[in-house]
Structures are given as C-alpha cells and as structure tokens.
C-alpha cells in the first residue's frame, strides 16, 4: 500500500493542497446547503448550476489548458489572431416593403458603418409566393422585403456593387431560387459568380423543426441543398451555401443544449447527404457556416459557442474523415435572442441586447446582429436599429473586450459548462440516432415535441414566478407603456409589386419563360443538378412562384405533423 510517506515530498505537498481544497469546497457547499436559498430556477437549461466552481470540477478534463486558438479542436476560436486580426462583422438583418425602400435602408446602414448586408424577406417570398399570389394578401413587405423576380433583386442592390459587399440572405424553402436571382443580378452588374461573397441560410431541416417556411417534402428539399453545395463549390467558391441554424430552434423554445445538439445533428445530416452524392467532404464542408441564438444565460451561451466549435471539429475530422482544417472550423453568425425581448418597458431591451452581444463576442462569433428594442411591437425604426448597431460599436471600440482571445478560457465554470454542454449534446445525438436520425425524427414530430415541451416548461416557470422577467412578472409598472415610435408598413408595397409584376409578365419573352420552366421540370425529374436550369429561368424573368410551382409539379408539397 502506498502512503503519502512514500511519495516524493512535492507530490505529497500537492496531495495535501488538493485535500485541503476538497475540504474547503465541502465546507463551502455545506454552508450553502444550510443557508437560505432563493426559490428560483438557476438555469435556463435543465441542468443544475452549482454555486461555486473550482479546479475540482475539471478533474478528468484538461479544459482548454493545452489549447490555443486557431488549432484543432478550436474550442478557443478559429482564428489564431482572434479579434486582434479582424473584428466580427456587424451585420444587421433588414428588409421591409419594396425592394426600393429596402435598398435605401441598406445604403443608410452602409453609411452608418455596417460591414455586411443581411436580407430579411417577407413571408410570401419566404414561402415562394409572388407578391400578387392570393396567399400573399396582407403580408407583402410586412416582415421583410418582397422579391418576386430577378427585376426585384436588381432593384434591391441598385447602386451597391456586389463584388464589394458580403450579403447574407435569410431564405430556406425557395433558397435555391433566390440565390439564382442574386447570381443573375450580379451578372447584370458585370460581377462574376466567383467574386460573390455571402451566405444563404438554406437550412431546411430547422424549418421543419421550428421555423416552418418550407416548400417541398424533406427528401427533394435535401436534394436541392446538395445541388447548391455542388454548384457552389465549382462556381461560387466564396459563398457559404448554408447557414445551419440553431437560432429558430432556440426561439421556438429549445434549451441551449437542445439548440446545440439539434443544430449540429442537422449539420451532420447535410454532410452525410453531400458525401452520399459522391462529393469529397473537403470540397463543400469549408463553406458550411452556422447561426446561433445568444440568449440570456450569459455563461451558458459562451460555453455553448465554445462547445459547438469543438464538437463540429471532432466529428468532421474523426467521423467524416475531413482532412482540410477549414472543414473542421465552425464559422458562425450570432444574433441576440428576439424571444427575450419584452413588450413591457421596451427600453430595457437595449440592456438585454448588450449583455447578449457581449456573450456572443466572448464566445468568438464571426458576425453579429443585435436586435432593436422595439421588435416585440413592430419592425424596428431607423433610430432603434442605430442604437442596436451602436451597442456593437461600443463593445468593439470602448470596452477592451476584443483585445484578448477567448478571455474566459481557463475559467473553472466556463470550462466545466463547455464540457457539460458537449456531453449533453452527445447524449442527445444518441437519442436522435434512436429515433432513426434527423429526417425520421422530423417525420414523427419527435423534435417538434421536444421543442414545444421546453417552451411550455419555460412559460410555466415564468407563471410560477420560478423565473423572473424584469418588467413582465417582476418590477412591473402600472402606468401606460412608454410610447416609442413604430414603423408602419402600409399596403403601398403590395400595390406597387402587383403592378410591377403585371408589367414584367407583359414585357418578357413568354415563350422563352415557358420553355425554361419545362426544361427545369425535366431536370427535376432526373438527377441532374438543377441550379443551371433555375439560373436560366431567373435570367428569363420567370417569377419566384412560377419556378416554385414547376418544382412542386415534380416534388409535391410538404405536409406537417400537427399537434400541440
């Protein structure tokens, strides 16, 4: 038997120190357990949070003690120079009314120092309907900009050289069509596809899971995405062909661990589909990007972003055999959590957004959208958007936060949370595998149920006063809400769009359009990549809905499993 007496005196001393730490932590826990503890929920996710973390919580894990940023597994960041090399991109999501109005907002944002554009489309566009389709009534231009054809896309970027900006487009069901409109609009400016930089969200799995702007059934929708991976790798090499999104999953109610695991599982599914097509993983994986929601639980969010990078790197390298380090690196956009904003005392939202933005930056985001204070009431006004952008600028230039890379690396709590979230995600991957994978889990509604259950639990916690929301169920005020100016969208955009579409249909070469649509149907029936066919339709000024309908003729429509 070995006793401390036999050990080297240094080791014995260390052993003694460790024992002393154990005793002190035990004493601290005992005092905590004996004391009065407020009866509230201490975590946004299901896991309990201890009142104190020490080196003992990292036993069996090195945390990131032997890691530097820019090296596998990238827990501490993908760039060796962090924000010292390049700040994050301040990318404010915007779009409303007509292409002309939104074009003016983009020019305003570029003039204010925003460094990348981000297009918000209206619901008809998100669903693949033209502005003059009966299903679009009342919704044209309301939640984003209406884009029904190449002509609208040309107007949207009029005077904005597409070889000089990077553009993110939040579009999923009909993503392939809007991407072709963008490529064709660039051609009109004399900009070649290989010069284009940007991202198309194109994450259909999370649409079925949470956000619900779909067009086609799951299998053909996945085929369109792989067509874009393939075409992008060959012709639009600087474009991110997908932004695999946890944002909407979280907003719909998921916990941080569910957001992390469901999103990564979606990502793995896309990788598997690309490989199944016969693509070399290293040809398309470097163009896969991610999009995270940054919620209220400050340290958990930072840990989530660190864990996400590590999990992605490990799976891409070890499970999918990617050899190019760029395939291992998770690059991501973040947005502060819209769902945390309150309609009550809306000025408080500025503070929420600032804390969330800080978490996103401490988590090493590549780009960031900060929400505006008035978004629970309407689309944001220009003043509200400016405060949101200034929040990022203060963070970037005044706080000193970006000066040091991964400054929370080595924090007992953050390292432990990072390990914990990784373990939670792996446990959820196993559950997803038991469901038969992501597609099977969507068909049975497993994911949708998990998310709805989490949402119901959060509502219950709020109503039981287990969770306090300032201004909503705590620190409420009796007086009338603060009056803040709201952006009003009238029906003008809808009328203008209808007139413009009528002119377009009258002026274009109708026979050529019908021939292009027929060729597209034929290609969709086979196994050819459909991107070049949709590009031809776009160039001929076929409309969004005409192209969607041609594909729907072949693919059919999606039917959701309904439950609550």
């Amino acid at each position, binding site marked *: 038997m070995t006793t401390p007496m036999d050990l080297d005196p240094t080791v014995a001393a260390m052993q003694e120190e460790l024992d002393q730490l154990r005793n002190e932590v035990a004493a601290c826990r005992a005092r905590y357990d004996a004391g009065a503890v407020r009866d509230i929920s201490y975590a946004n996710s299901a896991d309990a949070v201890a009142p104190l973390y020490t080196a003992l919580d990292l036993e069996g894990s090195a945390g990131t003690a032997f890691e530097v940023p820019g090296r596998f597994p990238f827990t501490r960041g993908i760039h060796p120079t962090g924000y010292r090399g390049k700040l994050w991109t301040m990318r404010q999501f915007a779009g409303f009314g007509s292409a002309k109005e939104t074009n003016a907002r983009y020019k305003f944002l570029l003039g204010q120092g925003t460094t990348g554009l981000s297009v918000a489309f209206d619901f008809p566009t998100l669903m693949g309907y033209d502005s003059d389709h009966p299903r679009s009534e009342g919704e044209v231009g309301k*939640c984003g900009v209406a884009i029904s054809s190449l002509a609208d896309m040309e107007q949207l970027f009029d005077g904005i050289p597409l070889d000089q900006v990077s553009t993110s487009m939040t579009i999923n069901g009909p993503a392939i069509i809007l991407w072709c409109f963008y490529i064709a609009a660039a051609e009109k400016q004399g900009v070649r596809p290989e010069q284009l930089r940007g991202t198309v969200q194109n994450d259909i799995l999370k649409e079925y899971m949470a956000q*619900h702007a779909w067009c086609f059934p799951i299998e053909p929708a996945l085929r369109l995405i792989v067509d874009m991976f393939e075409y992008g790798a060959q012709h639009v090499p600087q474009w991110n062909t997908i932004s695999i999104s946890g944002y909407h999953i979280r907003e719909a109610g998921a916990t941080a661990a569910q957001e992390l695991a469901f999103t990564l599982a979606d990502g793995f599914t896309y990788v598997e589909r690309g490989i199944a097509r016969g693509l070399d993983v290293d040809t398309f994986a470097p163009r896969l990007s991610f999009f995270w929601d940054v919620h209220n639980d400050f340290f958990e969010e930072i840990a989530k972003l660190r864990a996400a990078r590590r999990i992605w790197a490990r799976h891409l390298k070890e499970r999918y055999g990617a050899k190019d380090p760029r395939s291992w690196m998770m690059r991501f956009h973040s947005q502060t959590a819209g769902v945390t904003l309150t309609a009550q005392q809306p000025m408080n939202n500025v503070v929420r957004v600032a804390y969330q933005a800080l978490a996103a930056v401490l988590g090493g985001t590549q780009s960031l959208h900060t929400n505006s204070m008035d978004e629970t009431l*309407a689309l944001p006004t220009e003043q509200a958007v400016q405060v949101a952008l200034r929040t990022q600028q203060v963070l970037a230039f005044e706080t000193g936060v970006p000066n040091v890379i991964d400054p929370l690396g080595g924090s007992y709590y953050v390292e432990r949370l990072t390990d914990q979230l990784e373990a939670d995600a792996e446990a959820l991957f196993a559950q997803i595998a038991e469901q038969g994978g992501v597609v099977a889990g969507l068909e049975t509604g497993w994911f949708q149920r998990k998310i709805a259950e989490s949402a119901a639990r959060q509502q219950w916690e709020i109503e039981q006063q287990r969770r306090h929301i300032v201004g909503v169920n705590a620190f409420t005020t009796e007086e009338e809400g603060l009056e803040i100016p709201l952006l009003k969208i009238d029906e003008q955009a809808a009328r203008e769009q209808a007139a413009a579409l009528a002119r377009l249909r009258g002026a274009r070469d109708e026979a050529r359009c019908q021939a292009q649509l027929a060729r597209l149907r034929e290609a969709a029936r086979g196994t050819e990549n459909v991107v070049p066919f949709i590009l031809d339709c776009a160039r001929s000024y076929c409309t969004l809905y005409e192209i969607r309908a041609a594909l729907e003729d072949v693919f059919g429509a999606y039917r959701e499993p309904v*439950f609550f």
Partner: protein
Amino acid sequence: MSRPIRVLVAKPGLDGHDRGAKVVAAALRDAGMEVIYTGLHQTPEMIATAAVQEDVDVVGLSVLSGAHMTLFPRVRALLAEQGRDDILITGGGIIPAEDMAALEALGVGKLFGPGTPTTDLIDYIRSWFAAREPQGT
C-alpha cells in the same frame, strides 16, 4: 356543471411562428377546454370552415407577421357570412396597441401581446363564456 368551452387555435397566413399558439393551446387544454389546433399556413376560409364544422365557441388567432389587419377582419367576416358571428374571435401576436384597439372596434375580441400570462386569457374566455351562456345550464 356546464359543458366544456370549445376553442379553435389557428395560425392564419404564411407566418410560421407557432411557439405562442402551441403554448396557448396546451394551457387552454390544461384549463379544461376542448382545444383544436389547425396547424400552420391556414387561409381565413380554412379557419372559418373548421370553426363552423367543429362548432367551437372561440377562435384564437396567432399572428406575428404584421398581417393582423387583414386576417382578423377576414375571419370575422367569413364567420358572419355563415351566421356564426356569435363565435368569439380573440388572439395575440406582435400587434401594436392601436391596431388592437382598431380591431376591437371592428368586433374582434380582446387581443393579447407578448408577456401575457396564460391565466389572463383563460380568465377572459371563461368570463366571456359565462356572460354568454344562460345561467343554470
């Protein structure tokens, strides 16, 4: 004991945000009401038809898309056409206060914004129902 209140929870239009609709549907069910949820992307015609066929007392519409000034009056008009203007139309979403007031003036019931406790709308529906139903049935 009176019969349970029947509620149709519906998502009109193209807006896919169903977190609120599902939370509300579950809360109303837990409060003892009979709840039917339509699923997403319903037209006003589909909602009115479902409300009449299911013989509901209340239609709850969830709209976060900004299209509330089109969708609420349309559902109300379609129900009135079928002689069912006795059905309470309530709901919620991202709806500015002045639009809520304008819709109430058009005969739509009370609308609820973000942060409303589900107990508020349960109480509202129950008291509306109690006032409508004759005593003692």
